[in-house]
Every structure is written in structure tokens, then in C-alpha cells.
């Protein structure tokens, strides 16, 4: 199993929640103090370097117009990391290509980073959450179709090495594609795609790309992985899906004592509890399929309402539903092991290891405790050569 330290580079110095409507999209950037922000970047970059020193890989992501993730141009930060680090794999998860107007430009950025890092790039692509729609001014309809067409174009740009090619698709048009530099890795960097829906996962499986899913827990994850494995097999990629094709992102905090671990876990929960977002930004027209909207209306009609995303979540409920692993090393190892077997196996653990007010010292403690006390056991227990879905098949 490979582990990845993931930090959203949040800006946590915010007014009380009742004084603003939404932490995303509308919170005025007057609230952001660039001097504090600069110190935060120093710190977060340092934490990624420490992760590398401890043998853990590096992951970052991109969001826009939000205090939850002040990394609106992830390739820029990735370029810095390419020079600040020397051995860790560098995962961007990912480029929101349904919201980017020029996929060829994205191909160029990724190729440049791959060369800058001497072939350490893992290139991820995401559709983007609903709150990205307005910041990107991106049409919420047909995003999935744009996403896949953009990805095809990017792969073409990476792998066409004999002079200009062209692309005339449904959404993107490019008459002269001949990027310099080309990627360091051949034929191109590993491709990751994140999705939290079973339908999306089958498409990722059919391409054989690495599938990541975020906080989908005991309940949602098995169907997503099943769907990936089915998509993989149906596309003729073979019977066995290697575990290294699957990734799971959870909040993770390891402490050297129960009390220390609990305190860290409580602070990590900021990921969920700080995410105050207006309902009309959470579900913009056209973002979710019609059937999903009908389901929501049926829920509303039954008095359910949208509720706040995870607003009632606690550390205990997060552990119970499989979105958080925390505790002393033994406990965290057991929690991950249970989850691993429940979902049929996965080869990449994305550690949401810093959030909100979890300070530098505690973040580093969590990284080191995981890296030294848990990671070696995971690597031994769950080899990268394992086949995903075997447990599930055996149980059936």
C-alpha cells in the first residue's frame, strides 16, 4: 500500500460561522490576510517535505474562491514541490478539466511538472464539486462529457510525439497540438480520476486509470469499487484488478496516546464542520442528474430537506462510518484493515492529515506517527501486488 499526505491548505482564521453565509463562493477575501497566508504556505510546504522525509508521498488538490482550500492553481504549488522534494511521488488530484477552457494548456502544465520533478508526477483529474461551478463560470450541464473529452485530448497531447496533431471534438477544438516539453514518464504520467458515484467509477475502470474516492465510507465505497472492477473487466483489461488501481481518502490522525489522537481527530473534523455552504451553491441546476434531483425533491417532500453536508458528524460517527481513522497506531492499523477487507482492497491511502486549526506541531506528530508506526505494517500486510475484489468474491 502506498500512502499520500494530503493537505487542502485551508485558511482557518475566519469570523464566527453565524457571521457569514457560506465559506465557499461568497465569503469576501477581505477576511484573508496575505501575510498570514504566506506563513501558512511556508508551513504547509514544510509539512509536505516532512511527509517525504518520512517516506510518505505527496498529494494536493485545487479549489477556487473558498477558505477551505486556498490552492486555486494547484500546478503552481506542485511546481514548487517538484523543486523542494526529491523522491516522493507528487499527486495532483486533481485538475478540474471540465472547468478549464484549454485542455492542451493543462497537458503542458503537467508535462512541465513531470520534467521538473524528473518523472515523479501522478496526474489526477476531477470533475469538480458543485461549488466550483460559479467560480469557474462553468456550465454545470454536460460536465461529465466535457471531462472525458478533455482527458482524451490531454492524453493525445502527451502521446503525440511526431509533430503537430489536431483535435476537433464536441467541446474542444485545437488545430496544432505539439507540446514542449513532453512528459518525462513514458508514455505519460499515471492518470488518476476521482469520482464518488458508481456510474463514474465504471468509466474510470474501463480506461484502467487509478480510481480515487473521498469519504465515501463503509456504505458508499463497495459499490464504487465493484463498479470500477466491472468496468475494468468489461473493457477486456483482464479478470484481476490490481489494488494499486484503487485509492481511498479518509481523515487520518495517529497519536502516541489516546488523548493526543483524540485531540487531533477533533481538530481534523474541521474538514466537515467548517464546510458551511448555502444550499443553492451545493446543488446548482444541471450539476446533478435529473434522477438525483427527483430523489432530493422526494426527500424534501417527505420533510427531509438538504441538511448541512455532514453537519452533525462527530469523531465517533466518522470512525463508525469509515470516513475517519484515528487513534494510537494499533487502533488505526486495525481500522484501516477492517475497511480494506470491507471494500475488497485498495492500494492507495490518501491521508487527509491537516485541517483547520490542527497546528504544525500536531500535524507533524500525526504524519510521523503514521509513517513510523502504521505505514510499515500496512505495506507488509497489503502488498501492492494484491488483487482487489478477492475478499468480496470469496465472501460471495
Amino acid at each position, binding site marked *: 500500500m502506498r500512502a499520500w499526505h494530503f493537505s487542502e491548505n485551508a485558511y482557518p482564521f475566519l469570523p464566527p460561522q453565524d457571521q457569514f453565509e457560506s465559506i465557499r463562493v461568497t465569503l469576501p477575501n477581505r477576511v484573508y490576510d496575505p501575510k498570514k497566508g504566506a506563513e501558512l504556505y511556508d508551513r504547509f510546504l514544510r509539512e509536505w517535505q516532512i511527509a517525504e522525509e518520512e517516506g510518505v508521498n505527496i498529494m494536493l488538490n485545487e479549489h477556487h474562491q473558498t477558505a477551505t482550500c486556498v490552492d486555486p492553481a494547484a500546478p503552481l504549488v506542485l511546481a514548487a514541490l517538484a523543486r523542494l522534494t526529491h523522491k516522493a511521488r507528487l499527486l495532483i488530484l486533481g485538475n478540474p478539466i471540465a472547468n478549464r477552457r484549454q485542455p492542451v494548456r493543462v497537458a503542458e502544465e503537467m508535462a512541465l511538472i513531470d520534467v521538473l520533478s524528473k518523472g515523479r508526477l501522478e496526474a489526477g483529474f476531477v470533475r469538480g464539486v458543485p461549488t466550483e461551478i460559479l467560480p469557474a463560470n462553468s456550465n454545470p450541464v454536460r460536465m461529465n462529457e466535457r471531462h472525458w473529452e478533455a482527458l482524451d485530448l490531454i492524453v493525445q497531447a502527451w502521446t503525440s510525439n511526431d509533430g503537430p496533431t489536431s483535435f476537433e471534438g464536441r467541446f474542444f477544438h485545437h488545430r496544432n497540438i505539439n507540446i514542449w516539453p513532453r512528459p518525462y514518464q513514458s508514455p505519460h504520467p499515471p492518470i488518476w480520476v476521482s469520482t464518488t458515484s458508481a456510474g463514474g467509477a465504471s468509466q474510470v475502470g474501463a480506461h484502467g486509470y487509478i480510481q480515487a474516492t473521498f469519504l465515501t465510507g463503509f456504505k458508499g465505497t463497495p459499490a464504487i469499487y465493484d463498479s470500477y472492477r466491472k468496468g475494468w473487466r468489461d473493457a477486456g483489461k483482464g479478470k484481476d484488478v490490481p489494488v494499486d488501481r484503487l485509492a481511498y481518502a479518509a481523515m487520518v490522525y495517529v497519536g502516541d496516546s489516546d488523548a493526543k489522537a483524540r485531540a487531533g481527530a477533533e481538530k481534523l473534523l474541521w474538514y466537515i464542520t467548517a464546510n458551511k455552504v448555502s444550499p443553492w451553491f451545493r446543488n446548482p441546476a*444541471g450539476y446533478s442528474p435529473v434522477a438525483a434531483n427527483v430523489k432530493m425533491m422526494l426527500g424534501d*417532500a417527505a420533510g427531509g430537506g438538504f441538511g448541512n453536508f455532514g453537519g452533525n458528524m462527530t469523531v465517533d460517527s466518522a470512525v463508525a462510518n469509515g470516513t475517519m481513522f484515528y487513534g494510537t497506531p494499533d487502533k488505526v492499523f486495525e481500522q484501516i484493515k477492517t475497511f480494506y477487507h470491507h471494500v475488497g482492497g485498495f492500494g492507495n491511502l490518501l491521508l487527509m492529515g491537516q485541517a483547520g486549526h490542527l497546528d504544525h506541531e500536531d500535524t507533524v506528530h500525526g504524519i510521523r506517527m503514521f509513517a513510523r508506526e502504521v505505514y510499515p505494517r500496512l505495506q507488509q500486510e497489503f502488498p501492492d501486488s494484491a488483487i482487489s475484489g478477492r475478499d468480496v468474491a470469496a465472501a460471495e
Partner: protein
Amino acid sequence: MKRQMLKLGEIELELHESGAGAPLLFLHSGSGFVADHAFVALLAERHRVVAPAHPGFGYSTLPDWLDSIDDIAHVYLELLDRLDLQRVTLVGASIGGWIAAEMATKSPERFDKLALIGPVGVKTGGAKQLDIPDIFAHPVEALDRMRFHDPAKAKIDLTKLSEEEMRIIARNNETLALLVWEPYMHNPKLKHRLHRLTMPVLFMRGASDGLVSAEYLERYAKLVPGARIATIAEAGHLPHIEQPKAFAAAMAAFLGPIPGQGA
């Protein structure tokens, strides 16, 4: 009221017809066409009313290639050919008004009169402010206040809707986003074509319309030679739905005596 599905190229179009007399093509707003609305029967007292559900709305299909208001204008010019309607009265509300304006700039000779109710479609103000408030960035309650003089009339009781009706609402919203997202609620080219409208044109607006302001409508109307403006009291963005009688009276005043029946 007669309802049928009509095949136009790749599109299966839901089409409503009622009344008799001079043909009138009615183009609905972003919330879709509801045949039971009182204004439909009032228009049908004087006209053969032809009312399609736009592609992607109601039961009309949405082909992959269709993504703009201008595309729909072309579909409806084909519809007029199919129905052999050489000359019609054209009425459109909100985005339906935008479709109507696009159609009229392409084939002005086909329309004897044009009525635009709370129409969108042009950019008339400065670059740093939206002409039309962003309907995708407001809570439902605020949108209801923009759309209706009496927002209580906007309330939809979800418990009284069938799943099929919910599906249509969700799909209408999706198609609306597809069509008006960017440039938001307008076609930058349209205002440079509006001088082609040589037929009598009426711009109508509910006095309490929170989406189409009086200033916007005046600037829009100024782009059309000789256009008139009528205001409907105690109505929001959808005066034909909120004040059907006042709407019908204003339409009758604009459209004049029924052709063939003298003064």
C-alpha cells in the same frame, strides 16, 4: 387543447394547440409550459394558439448538439415551415421572448406582430454589473420574490407533485442552465440585429419584475424601431401567469381587432 409529439429533425417536440383564428406562436419562460394556465384559454379566444415545449423542457427531447437559444430559434422556424404557417403573431415570455427576438431577426417577414413579455437576451448595461440578477446564485425565496408580485403564488407544494412532475421540473432547470449560462442570459450579437424588426413590437413587463428591470426593458426596447412598452400592475416576471386578465387585455389592445371580423 390538443397535445401531440412532432418530429423535427432529431427532435421530438411536445406541441400544444388550442383555439381558432389567426395563428399565434407562444414561447414559454424558463419554468416551462403549463396548458392549464388561464392566459392560454384567454389567448385562444381570439387565436389559434400554438405552444411548443422547448427542446429539453416538458416532454420535448434535447439532442446532444443543442446548447443555445439561437439553436431553438432555428428549430422553431422549421416548426413554422412544418405547420405551413407563413405569417404568425409571435409572443414569448422571458427566455421565450429571447427565442422570439432571435427568430424575428432571422425572418422578420414571417411575423405580423411580436410581443415580448419580460424578455431577456441582450446586454444593455455596463460590463461590471449583470443586467439580469444571477438566478443561480440566490435562495429560492429570493427568486420567488423576483419572479412574482405575490411570492406566495410561486410556492410549489412538493407533496402534491408526482415523480413525473418532479422530473420535468428538474429537467427544465437543467436545460435552462445549459441555455443561459454563458454569456449569461444574452447573445452579444442579438442587439446588433434587432433593427431588422419592422413589425409592430410590444415590450411588456410586470411592475414588480425583479429580474427584468424597467431600465433594462427600456434600453432593450430602444434597440427596436418604434417599439412600445406596456406595464402590468401587481405582476412580477410572469405577468401572463400572475395577472392573466390584465395580460390578455394588454395583448388585445396591441393585437387589435381580430383579422376578418372588422373593427
